[in-house]
C-alpha cells in the first residue's frame, strides 16, 4: 500500500467542496468527535478557526483560504493540554503544526490527544488585505489555489503573499497524521497517511488507495527550492539593512510597546510575561539617572529590552509564521528580524523548531560542542 489516497475526483476550482465533504465525514462517521478547521464567518468574507462538533455546522469550510488570523498551534495546544474528553482533530498549516510541536515540548499541549491533518500551504495574505479581496472575489480560495499551482503567483489583482510565507521552506504537512496534498498531484488533491493513526482513519473512511503521484517529489523539491531562494534573499537583506545595530535600533524605535507581537506569537507561551511584572518598574530617580548619563533617554525605557528578551527567550523556537509582523500596528518587520536572528541561534544548536518531537529544546540539553560557531 502506498500511503496515498484519493480525496475526491473533482475540483481544484472549489477545493472547499471535496475538503468540506472530507471534514464532514470525519465527524459523521465518528472518526473524530470534534474538528478544528478554518471556516468562513457568516456575513463576512473573513475566515477563522472553528471547533466543529456537529457535521451540519460544517457549512463554509475553507482551510486553504490564504489567511492565518491566529496561529492554530496555540489552539491545538489549548485543546490538548488537559484531556479534552473526546477525539479531537485539527486541520492546520505547516507553521501551525510546527508551533504546536514546540508547545508540546514545552508541555503546553499533547500530541497524543489530537488527530492532525496537515496540508501543502501555498502561503497567506495579510488578514485585512485578504478580507477585502475575498469580499470582492467569490470562490476566492479556489482561484488562489489554481493560480498558485499553475504559476506560483497569486491570481491577478490579489494582494501579495506575506514575506514570511514566501520565505517559508517548510510548506508541507510534515508530522501530521494525514496530509492534504495539492502540489504535483495531477487532477485534484489527494491524501497521504503519515502515521498509523492516519492510515487507520482513511481506511475506516474507505478512501481509495492510489499510487504515489509520479510528479509529486520533483514538484515539491522545486517548490521548496524557490522558497529557500526567497528566504536567503530575505536573510541577506535583513542582515545588511536591518540588523546592523544602529539600523536595528532605528527599526525597533518605532515600537509603541503594545506587545501585540508577543500576544500573537505561538512560541510565547508564558502565562504571565516577565514584562507584565514589576521587574522593569524602576524607582523614579532611576529614570533621571539614566537621562543624566547620556543627556537623554527614550521612554518607556524597556521597549528595546523587550524585543531582545523575547528574542533570547523564543528565537530557538521561532517557526517563522509571521504573526508578529502582521500584528504590528507600526509595520515593524518583527518576523523578518526574528527569523534572521533565529536562523543563527537555531544553527548553533543544530535545531529546527517543530521538526520532530524527539528533538529536545536546546535550553534543556547540553552538548560539549554546542556553542562553537556553526555559520
Amino acid at each position, binding site marked *: 500500500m502506498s500511503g496515498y489516497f484519493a480525496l475526491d475526483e473533482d475540483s481544484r476550482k472549489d477545493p472547499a467542496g471535496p475538503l468540506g465533504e472530507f471534514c464532514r465525514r470525519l465527524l459523521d462517521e465518528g472518526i473524530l468527535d470534534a474538528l478544528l478547521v478554518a471556516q468562513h464567518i457568516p456575513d463576512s468574507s473573513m475566515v477563522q478557526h472553528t471547533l466543529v462538533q456537529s457535521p451540519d455546522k460544517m457549512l463554509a469550510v475553507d482551510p486553504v483560504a490564504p489567511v492565518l488570523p491566529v496561529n492554530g498551534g496555540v489552539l491545538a495546544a489549548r485543546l490538548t493540554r488537559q484531556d479534552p474528553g473526546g477525539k479531537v482533530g485539527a486541520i492546520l498549516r505547516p507553521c501551525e503544526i510546527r508551533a504546536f510541536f514546540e508547545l508540546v515540548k514545552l508541555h*503546553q499541549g499533547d500530541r497524543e490527544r489530537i488527530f492532525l491533518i496537515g496540508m501543502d500551504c501555498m502561503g497567506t495574505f495579510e488578514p485585512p488585505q485578504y478580507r477585502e479581496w475575498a469580499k470582492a472575489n467569490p470562490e476566492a480560495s479556489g482561484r488562489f489555489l489554481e493560480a498558485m499551482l499553475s504559476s506560483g503567483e497569486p491570481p491577478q489583482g490579489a494582494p501579495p503573499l506575506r514575506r514570511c510565507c514566501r520565505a517559508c521552506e517548510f510548506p508541507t504537512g510534515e508530522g501530521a497524521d494525514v496530509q492534504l496534498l495539492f502540489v504535483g498531484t495531477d487532477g485534484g488533491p489527494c491524501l497521504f497517511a503519515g502515521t498509523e493513526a492516519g492510515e487507520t482513519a482513511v481506511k475506516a473512511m474507505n478512501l481509495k488507495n492510489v499510487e504515489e503521484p509520479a510528479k509529486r517529489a520533483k514538484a515539491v523539491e522545486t517548490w521548496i527550492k524557490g522558497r529557500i531562494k526567497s528566504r536567503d534573499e530575505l536573510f541577506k537583506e535583513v542582515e545588511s539593512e536591518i540588523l546592523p545595530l544602529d539600523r536595528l535600533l532605528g527599526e525597533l524605535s518605532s515600537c509603541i510597546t503594545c506587545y501585540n507581537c508577543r500576544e500573537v506569537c505561538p512560541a510565547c507561551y508564558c*502565562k504571565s510575561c*516577565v514584562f507584565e511584572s514589576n521587574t522593569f518598574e524602576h524607582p523614579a530617580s532611576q529614570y533621571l*539617572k*539614566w537621562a543624566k548619563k547620556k543627556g537623554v533617554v527614550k521612554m518607556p525605557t524597556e521597549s528595546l529590552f523587550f524585543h531582545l528578551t523575547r528574542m533570547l527567550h523564543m528565537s530557538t523556537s521561532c517557526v517563522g509564521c509571521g504573526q508578529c509582523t502582521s500584528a504590528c500596528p507600526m509595520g515593524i518587520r518583527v518576523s523578518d528580524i526574528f527569523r534572521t536572528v533565529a536562523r543563527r541561534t537555531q544553527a548553533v544548536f543544530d535545531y529546527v523548531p517543530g521538526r520532530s518531537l524527539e528533538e529536545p529544546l536546546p535550553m534543556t540539553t547540553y552538548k560539549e560542542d554546542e556553542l562553537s560557531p556553526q555559520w
Partner: protein
Amino acid sequence: MENRIGVYVCHCGTNIAGKVEVEKVAEYAGSLPGVVISREYRFMCSDPGQEQIREDIAKHRLNRVVVAACSPRMHEKTFQKTLEKAGINRYYLQVANIREHVSWTTEDPETATKKAMDMVRAAVARVPLHGPLPTHEVAVNKEVMVVGAGIGGIQAALDIADGGYKVHLVERLPSVGGHMSQYDKVFPTLDCAACIGTPKMVAVGMHERIQLHTYSEVEEVSGFVGQFKVKVRHKAAYVNHEVCTGCGICQEKCPKKVPSEYDMKLGKRKAIYTLFPQAVPNKPVIDRDNCIYFQNGKCRACEKFCEMKAIDFAQQDRVEEIEVGSIIVATGFDQMDPSIIEPYGYGRYPNVITGLEFERMVVGAGPTLGKIQLKDGSVPKDVAILHCVGSRDLRYHEYCSRVCCMYGLKHAHQIREKIGANVYMFYIDMRCFGKGYEEFYNRVQNEGVILIRGKAAQVTDQAVLPEDEGRLIVTAEDTATGEKVYVPVDMVILSAAMEPRVDAQQTARIFNINRSKDGFFLEQHPKLAPVNTAVSGIFLAGTCQGPKDVVDTVAHAAAAASKSLALASKGVVETESMISWINPEVCVGCQTCISVCPANAITYNERRGISSVNEAVCLGCGSCAATCPSGAASLKHFTADEVLAEVDALMGA
C-alpha cells in the same frame, strides 16, 4: 523603613590596600545614598574588625551592611554571623569582592580604585532590597556509608562505628582489605602489613555497628546531606553466605584454575574463590565467567561437596536502597600499567615487573611463598629498581606518586635482606619526607644499595659484553657524575605510578563529585577542606583524592570520619536559604526548569499544572531562574530586582 547602611572597606593587609586606595573608597562610600557610616580597616575579618561592625550596628542603628573585601566564598559566612550576633538578619549583608575582582586582577592602581568604588556603589544599591531569609534545619540520618574497604575505608568505618553510629561499608571485591592487604611489609617501620592490617579487617567484620556489604557496588545516589538514598547492587555470589561456614572444601574441589588478580597473576585461584586466606568475610564467590557449570552446564563439584548446601547457582543480583546521612568515598587507586612506557619493556621482558608484583612475590603467604625469583625460578643476582615510572613525567602523570621512593627503598632492603643480590636504584630525587622516612633512607643506603641519580632511559636485552648475554641492561645518565651508565641486571622492578581508578569518571558521576586535573577526586579546598567535596555530606578518604601512603591514608580517613561523626552527632543540618522559589501564580508548567536542575530538586504537580522546588534538595545554583522565561522561578538573594539594581548602579556613575 529608612536605609541605614554601614560600609566596611578591608585592606586585607596589602592584598587590597597595596593596589586600591581604600581610604578613598571608604570616603566615596560615605557619600552614597543611605550610607550612614563607612570605614576602612586592615583586616575586617579579624575580631576587632567584626567587633567594629557590631558596635556600629548598635550605635548607628544600621539595618544593612556592605563589606568590601575578599570573595564571599571566603568570608560571607563570617560576616553573616557578625550581623546575626548584632541582632539583624544575616542576609542584610552584601559582600563586594574588591580583592579577587579588583586588586588581584587590575594592573593600574587608579583604575583599581575606581573599579572598587563602582563595586561598592553596586553593593550599596542592592543591599536595601535584601529580604530577611529564614533558615531551616533538616534532620541528619545517623547512619553513614563508607564506599571502599581498603585501609582508608576500614579506618573511617571503625572510627565512626566506635563513635557510636552505624556504618554501611561497601566493597566491590569479595573481601575487605584493599591494596594494603596485598603488601608484605610497610615502610618505614617494616611492620608486616598483615600483622597490622588483619586485626582491623577482623574488627570491621565483627563490629556490631558495621554492616559489611562486600561484593557490592553503589549504583545511584540521590537525596542530600543528612538524607541520602543510596542504591547498592549486591552482586550474586552464587553462594549463600548465610549458611556458608567458609570451610574451603569448595575451593579445594573446584577443577577450574584461573590466574589470580589479587596475586597480580603470579599465582592461580579457583573459579570459586576467596581473595586470600584471611579474607573478611571468609566466604567464597563464584566467578561466573570462569565457572565450568555456568559456561557449559556441567560440573557442580562445589555443590556436591558443600555440606551446608550453600551453593546457589540461581542466585541473582539484589539491589538494596540504603538511607544514610553522609557518605565517605574511599575508592582507592589503580597501579599504572607501565606497558605503555615502551622503553622499559614491561610486558615484553618477563623479568621486568611492577612494584605490586614484587609485593606479591615477597609476601610469605604469596604465590612464590616469599621467594624472590625470576620467571625461570632462579634467584636474581642483580636487581634494578626504577623510580618515577609514569610519575613526574609530563607524558604520563605530571604529579609525584609520593610512595614510590619509600616502597622502592623498602624493596631494596627486602632484596638485600632475603637474597643479598646487588640492588641498583635509578631515581630523580629521593623524596623521604615523612616521620622516620629519612632515617629509613639512611638505613637502606648503609645496607649496600647502589643509588644512581638519574632516571633510567631504557631497559633492553641487547648486551654489549658477551657475559651479559641473556640479561637485562638498564641504561641511564648518572647526573651526579654526568656519565652514561650501563647496568646489567636479572630483574627490573618498576615503581609504577598511582593512578585514579580506571572508572573514576563513572564514580564521580554517581556521587556528583568533581575530579581535579590529575583525575583524582577533587577536594573542596586543598588546604582547609581536604576531605570535603563540593557536595555537602560527601567526603573523601585516602588515595581516591590523590596519591598517599598508608600513614597519610589513615590520617585522611580519620579526618573524613570526623566529618561524618560531626554531622551524625549534631543530628541536624542547616539547609541553604539562598535557594530557588517558583511563583505558582506565574508558573506555566513547561518544566524546562526540571530539565536543567542538576539536583533533581524540582517536581511537577500534574493536578495543579505547575512545578515547585523541594527546599531541602535545592542547591541554589540558579539554573532554573536563568532558564524560566516568565521569571516564575527566581533565586532568593539573587532576585531580578536585586541583580538589576546592582547592574543599574554599576552602569551609572
